[in-house]
């Protein structure tokens, strides 16, 4: 059982040492730029020239490539097949027996895949290179309520325990003769002895955890210090501002292109 469900891949690169909000801005910009660039090939260029070098800088190119293989490729294959072969009307460029491959379909598929590629790689770039708690601290410093921070981080670490408990409950009930295979009705009836202990036990746990947090001053009013210190710099500040401006321009520009004939 893993300790937590985060995807953070530790490293010592320049990318890893960037302030979390800088990485958030980079990923956000890549995302928005990718979705607003006109044409079909803009996204691929963006990924190749912007996202991939950043990933390589962080030593994460391999992991990124792995994710592209596992997530984007199946999507690409299906969209190419569906749009390429079943595009209504359009100009056929290739004949495969009774079916024909349409140029517009292929064109659409290229654009679609490009967008998915951008979303996935930008998101992963952020998640792989940023500790969840560092990102949460950065956001808290900018005004995010500490309660939300707590909920996000605690969920990451507590989900595996939840899964382990669910397994223990299944074991305990099977040991009393509960059958887990069988018809749909049988399986439906088996749900109650599996779900109720999970819920009731969680309620008991939550009560204890709330008291424990209280005992450690969690709801104490007033400012809080932070053990983890985030390192920021002037140029990162400027970079983040620039990225925000560029992102806005990209969105505005794209909207303008849509409106202006």
């Amino acid at each position, binding site marked *: 059982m893993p300790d937590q469900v985060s995807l953070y891949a530790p490293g010592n690169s320049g990318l890893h040492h960037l302030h979390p909000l800088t990485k958030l801005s980079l990923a956000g910009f890549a995302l928005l730029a990718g979705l607003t660039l006109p044409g079909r090939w803009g996204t691929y260029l963006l990924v190749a020239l912007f996202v991939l070098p950043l990933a390589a800088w962080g030593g994460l190119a391999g992991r990124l490539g792995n994710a592209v293989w596992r997530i984007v490729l199946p999507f690409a294959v299906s969209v190419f097949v569906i749009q390429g072969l079943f595009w209504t009307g359009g100009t056929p460029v290739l004949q495969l027996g009774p079916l024909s491959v349409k140029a517009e379909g292929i064109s659409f598929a290229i654009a679609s895949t490009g967008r998915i590629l951008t979303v996935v790689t930008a998101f992963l770039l952020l998640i792989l290179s940023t500790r969840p708690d560092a990102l949460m601290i950065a956001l808290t410093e900018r005004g995010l309520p500490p309660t939300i921070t707590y909920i996000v981080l605690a969920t990451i670490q507590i989900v595996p325990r939840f899964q382990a408990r669910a397994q223990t409950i299944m074991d305990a009930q099977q040991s009393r*003769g509960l059958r887990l*295979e069988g018809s749909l009705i049988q399986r439906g009836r088996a749900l*109650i002895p599996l779900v109720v202990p999970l819920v009731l036990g969680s309620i008991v746990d939550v009560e204890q955890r709330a008291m424990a947090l209280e005992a450690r001053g969690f709801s104490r009013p007033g400012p809080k210090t932070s053990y983890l210190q985030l390192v920021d710099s002037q140029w990162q500040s400027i970079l983040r501002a620039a990225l925000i401006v560029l992102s806005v321009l990209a969105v505005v520009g794209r909207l303008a292109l849509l409106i202006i004939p």
Partner: protein
Amino acid sequence: MRIHLESVGFAYAPDVVALDGVDLTIEPGERIAILGENGAGKTTLAKHLNGLLKPDSGVVEIGDWSTLEHSPAELAARVGYAFQNPDDQLFERTVRAEVAFGPKNLGLSAGEVDRRVRAVLGLVGLAARADTHPYDLQPTDRKLVALAATLALETPIVVIDEPTTGQDAAGLRVLAAVLDRLEADGRTIIVISHDIDFCSEHLERGVLMADGQVLADGPLAQVLSQTDLLARAAVEQPQMMRLAAALGLEGWPLTVENFIADYERQHRPQGGRP
């Protein structure tokens, strides 16, 4: 019903070996304590007995069944397993319904289910609370409900995981009564426990484990006399044995009565006989 493990090996992951070449034979009616610190493999071993875990190598036989060929639900007719945390299984609205769950799964008649529920609630001293919601009980009483739920299966083999955790004096008396009744009924009892004094007072054979292996297996007093193995397994001797050792008494007393008997044998009574 005989339990037979031969060369059992099990790993949770390629580098996490939990059981390593375990051989164990348990005859019907034996009363066994599985001893060892957390991580030694006690619970892993116990879960092999009712098929929750299947051995990677070797065989586990419960009577004439190999656990590889039967689901835990099927094996529940032969091996009852009472888990450590009652909140991992309680889901009914009354104690009565909770305890009836197991027998119902065995397909018994309503009359038989009822008889068993009444008998077992009487044994654990919760007959008066039969219609209470389990979560209205103290946590240690919930543990007794979970134990009762397992006992209601009336299996020839009963495995109990850490029954004494958090129990007070009354709870320990109930557990003693339960073990006495199981013994009287000729059932095989297997208890995993850190409470070495409780084990010494109610069980007869000890299986000492460390790092997935059985370090010692035999009469409890004999196993607990091997201090070097106990040190390896991070298990302490029962209070009376420690006292006897500190006093230089001969013998390996498991209980207060044993100790006094040993003491009496080696000392003249002071101040004249009564």
